[in-house]
């Protein structure tokens, strides 16, 4: 592709105008309601967005390194919620009491869940994507959809088609900061997500393995010549992505308290939108994209009509690619 329509400043300008109009419209709606409602919606949006950010990181890392939309990623996220749900009775955690005694078991559950999700994701890569690495793009895309269906099917077989209640273990107290009420629950979710995102960004920027990942993403053959073990690096990418998705699954369960076997499909698509919005292949971009999409969702749900929310989000997906294919923070991916 020699010249992309999206790179011209004219297209960017139209995109900016659309974004400005959307923001103005939202601001007008916001001003019709009182400020405390606004802050309540904002915290919900940010906490929701933090979960999307956790999932979006996995999408963006995998896309950055092998240019594959890993459709199974959203289901690895659901798997995290399901595994942790099954582990609660094992560790003797039940709804009702919450306190510092719950921190250690929760941490243990978290670690086991993340490890299991990572094993599943690495296995998927080994079985379904690695043999097709030199095949045309469509081939791994189809196996990704197949793997997504298999994971959903496994969870369906396990728990059936029901909405499952996820124990509400986070404190329900709300802090009152100068008239603005903020839930402790939202704060915990946000902190958790920020800690994980920052930790993994540092890991990718500073560690040797992270450097290998970035090198592989830039040019696989050159990385190979520099002595990087490509297979191991790609497996590590899937491992880290799944760890974050597993953490996202637990966080989602604790925050929303309701999971179902096919939750990963729509959540995954929204998180993928976040990754594209932030600039696919760009790690801080995915985090920011996740937060923004979470806020768009919360605002659209409460200030506009919730039945249009998904239309708005997928509209953003298309608009991003049409007007600014590199996303907000952008990474130029050459056509191979």
């Amino acid at each position: 592709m020699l010249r992309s329509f999206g790179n011209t400043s004219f297209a960017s300008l139209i995109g900016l105008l659309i974004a400005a109009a959307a923001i103005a419209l939202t601001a007008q709606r916001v001003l019709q309601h009182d400020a405390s409602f606004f802050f309540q919606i904002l915290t919900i949006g940010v906490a929701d967005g933090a979960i999307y950010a956790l999932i979006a990181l996995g999408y963006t890392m995998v896309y950055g390194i092998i240019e594959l939309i890993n459709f199974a990623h959203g289901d690895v996220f659901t798997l995290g919620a399901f595994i942790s749900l099954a582990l609660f009775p094992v560790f003797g955690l039940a709804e009702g009491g919450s306190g510092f005694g719950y921190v250690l078991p929760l941490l243990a559950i978290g670690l086991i869940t993340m490890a299991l999700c990572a094993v599943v994701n690495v296995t998927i890569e080994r079985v379904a994507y690695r043999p097709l690495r030199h095949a045309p793009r469509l081939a791994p895309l189809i196996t990704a959809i197949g793997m997504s269906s298999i994971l959903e099917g496994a969870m369906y077989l396990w728990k059936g088609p029901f909405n499952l209640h996820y124990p509400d273990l986070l404190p329900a107290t709300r802090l009152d900061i100068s008239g603005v009420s903020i839930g402790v629950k939202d704060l915990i979710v946000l902190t958790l997500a920020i800690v994980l995102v920052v930790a993994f960004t540092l890991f990718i920027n500073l560690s040797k393995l992270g450097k290998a990942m970035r090198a592989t993403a830039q040019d696989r053959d050159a990385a190979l010549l520099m002595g990087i073990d490509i297979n191991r690096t790609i497996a590590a990418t899937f491992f880290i992505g799944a760890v974050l998705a597993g953490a996202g699954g637990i966080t989602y369960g604790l925050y929303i308290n309701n999971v179902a076997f096919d939750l990963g499909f729509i959540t995954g698509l929204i998180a993928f939108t976040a990754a594209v919005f932030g600039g696919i292949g760009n790690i801080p971009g995915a985090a920011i994209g996740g937060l923004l999409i979470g806020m768009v969702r919360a605002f659209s749900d409460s200030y506009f009509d919730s039945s249009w929310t998904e239309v708005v989000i997928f509209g953003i997906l298309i608009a991003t690619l049409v007007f600014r294919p590199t996303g907000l923070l952008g990474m130029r991916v050459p056509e191979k």
Partner: protein
Amino acid sequence: MKRLSKLVREQSKNPNAIAYAAMAVAGLTFPGIAQFATGGNADYLVSLAADAGVFVLLAIGLNVVVGFAGLLDLGYAAFFAIGSYTYGMLASQQLISSPLHTALHVPFWIALVLGMFIAAGAGALLGAPTLRLRGDYLAIVTLGFGEIVPRFFRNMREWTSGVNGISALDVPTLPFWITGPWANTELAIEQNFRFVTFNATAWYVLIVILIVASVIGVNNLHGSRLGRAWMAVREDETAAAAMGVNTVNTKLLAFAIGASFSGFAGAFYGAKLSLVSPESFGFVVSITILSMVVLGGMGNIPGAMVGALLLYAVLYKFLPDAPLQAASLAHSLGLDWLNTVVPDGWPGLGEFVSRLKFIIFGLILVTIMLVRPQGLLPSRLRAQELKRGVHDEPVTTVP
């Protein structure tokens, strides 16, 4: 006669000719054989076959986009929805309750063409700004479009009745129709014929005619200048542009022509079911059609058709029937304990088998791609690509 036998001998080694011949024979004889085999109760089977025909049409259309032009479309069901809703709104009482306050009753034959053009227009509208994008960005855009369109129809309650969908659609009419033993009746000519829902054979004949027309059309396109341009763009866009192919227009035409097939498939589907609801056009439908094309053999028309028929049979006949059959098998083997439902535990064999459907669908997709990525009936060119890869091989592979 001599020429015919020569033709048969020549073509007997050509898998495409064999597939076409087999499908033609099966297509012509299916209603008769089905009625004979079931003792005249085959209406359900014939109706199912007519529904399968809709997916054959969809697979032929998607094959133009994905197989010929190499454009990845993950939201093909959106155009199917547009075709269905076009017919639903133009040929029912629906628009009385809309702000228009007038019901339109466009005849089916005209609506079929309209649905085709509107879907093609939607394809061109979506394609114009996005076809300049990199290959997999296009896949993402179509994915988003495929998610938006059904939700849009669901939310436009004034026009489309929202989740309930549009029901009681007009049926096609013809001045006369020939019926006979193949439909389990006496040979006769009916005047002022109406395609009522329970007349499965009529719908079957109609879809077979539509499919034959589409196959002839697409085959001609495939060999035309435009078809060769599609192939060139698919293989190497830069080289095609250097050879004087207008790549953007070529891709846009592939997108619009592909969409037009799902447009009229949608009109047929709506008319036959007499119901158009936003739930029937989700991502799963897009993926199913894509899998049909890939299973059959991308870029090969009879391949896509065979893939559509096979996958349709598995997904809409064998899998829905499997739970009951498994349960009765367990019963006849004296394993009734398998069928007892344990609360919060074993759901019973039938339910268990029906819950396996996602895993089976996933396994089909993964296995095809790993074992035979070129599909059952591949186009020779695509088979080579899929076998040898299109990317530069690494200088060396680490053992």
